[in-house]
């Protein structure tokens, strides 16, 4: 089984995000970069599928971005993935989700796969777009927000999150599915894993290499573009409810929620 994991490098969720001076992006100087937590689930799931099949097959990590992303791919390789491919171009950073999907879909033409796994969203732009768009562009079935899966007889069987519960879906391979929290607990890269990862193949390719016209992606090709970033309005300082007993405090809170806030 040949598996491709779509991976994005994002700021750690504990990052105190700062907006840059032209209000168009974030300050990256103090950011700790990590694998998007949902993509980490995707790497782990790919490794488990490979291990369940006796270690046969290959897990390839595919990402797009700047040279900085090499570190995230190496981390995935240290977890146990076999190869990495980075589409490196400045245009990637200014592409919208659809642009990134077009780049990844083009790169996939040169990679053989039975299965593609990706996190169901990236915790930086929260776009939800790239995995579904990649599946559409390469023309394979797609199941989103998967919390459990099995592969048997060329079919992917998934438990997927829907409102109010889950559903079991089945798709013929090749297929793409996206991971949701609950599917697994990702392993940490071991020290020997980190050492081995340094020698694993990591290929860097340009947009020209994969046959993408830079004007079709990047800022020029973007159909949804950021105009301005701002912080949400600060909340006014709150009040601590006083009282002698928990019951008194509870009664005072409920009174205020009803009379001041008018929410109950």
């Amino acid at each position, binding site marked *: 089984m040949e598996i491709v994991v779509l991976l994005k490098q994002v700021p750690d*969720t*504990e990052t105190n*995000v700062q*907006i840059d001076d032209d209000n168009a992006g974030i300050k990256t100087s103090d950011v700790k970069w990590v694998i998007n937590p949902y993509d980490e689930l995707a790497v782990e799931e790919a490794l488990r599928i490979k291990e369940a099949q006796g270690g046969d097959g290959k897990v390839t990590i595919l990402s797009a971005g700047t040279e900085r992303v090499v570190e995230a791919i190496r981390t995935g390789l240290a977890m146990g993935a076999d190869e990495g491919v980075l589409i490196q171009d400045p245009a990637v950073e200014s592409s919208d*989700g*659809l642009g990134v*999907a077009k780049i990844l879909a083009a790169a996939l033409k040169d990679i053989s796969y039975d299965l593609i796994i990706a996190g169901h*969203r990236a*915790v*930086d*732009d*929260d*776009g*939800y*777009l790239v*995995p*579904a768009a990649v*599946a559409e*562009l390469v023309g*394979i079935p*797609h199941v*989103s*927000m998967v919390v459990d899966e099995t592969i048997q007889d060329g079919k992917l*069987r998934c438990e997927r*999150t*829907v*409102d*109010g*519960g889950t*559903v*079991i*879906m*089945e*798709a013929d391979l090749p*297929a793409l599915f996206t991971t949701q*929290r*609950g599917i697994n607990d990702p392993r940490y890269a071991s020290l020997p894993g980190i050492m081995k990862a340094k020698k694993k193949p990591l290929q860097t390719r340009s947009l020209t290499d994969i046959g993408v016209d830079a004007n079709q992606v990047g800022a020029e090709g973007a*159909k*949804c573009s950021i*105009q*301005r*970033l*701002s*912080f*949400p309005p600060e*909340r006014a300082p*709150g*009040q*601590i*409810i006083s009282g002698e007993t*928990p019951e008194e*405090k*509870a009664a005072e*809170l*409920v009174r*205020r*929620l009803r009379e001041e*806030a008018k*929410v*109950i």
Partner: protein
Amino acid sequence: MPHGILVVAEQMDGKFRKVTYEITSQGRRMADAAGEPLTAAVVGAGVESIAGQLASFGADKVLVVDDPGLAEGTPESYAAAIFQVIKANEPKIVLFGATVQGKDLAPRLAARLDAGLAMDCTEIRLEGDRLVAVRPIFGGKVLAEVAVESSPKLAAIRPNVVEIEENLKEGQIEKMDVELPAAQTQLIEKRVEPSGQVDLTEADTVVSGGRGMGGADFSIIEELARSLGGAVGASRSAVDEGWRPHSDQVGQTGKVVTPSLYIACGISGAIQHLAGMASSKYIVAINKDPEAPIFKKADYGIVDDLYKVVPAITAEVKKLKE
């Protein structure tokens, strides 16, 4: 020539989701501002009887695709049907609800239509030929104003953020047939919990428990949520401990919620949790640690043992309802 605004209705078990009334009302306001007609698309199996309801919220026309092939409700079949509706009607703008279903459908259609998509918007307006939207990114730590320039322009609106307005229109119902392609994905089984539960992202009140709960017994949280007609949420720590399912998690790596009232019980207020609930209208924090960061975001705070305070609040709420 593309014209008009199309809203994609979402229904579950023969009822429209609340977000459907929200996006229809928002579509009406935008249609009025732009002098364009508003069409609502209702897609599913056995949906014709409810379609007319959307005329009360401002739809000039309701397009119904009622096809037994849509009974399983696979995203793939819905995407195929909605794609054909869009192709046949050529709207300038297509609005979705940013629910689990909307977040699956809208990206598929963006790729098929080669169209720009603003996902999970909290504000949306037309500026001439551009669609301008505000969408929280980094789980709500930052707001991005984005412009969509394509034909059509797609946007998915977050539940609970735009106002529902009744606005009676003629709502002429038009049936449309679609051709569903051979299915690539099959529904095998539905494991949907009994209805009656309020969905976390649509709930008007959310009561969440965190590490301070000390264990998996969330009964006092559930009782307070029930008394307020709300939903139960949890912090990442509570989920990581295995006390609550992942689907309950509120935060940057869970669900982002925008209820009128958010009650955080035993939650210290890690950045990634605050990101998921900070746009709630009112926030109440209950924690025995007066230094907990959550108090900085809370409108009302109670410093005390949550096991004493929460049941007392439930009792007070019940008194009000008697």
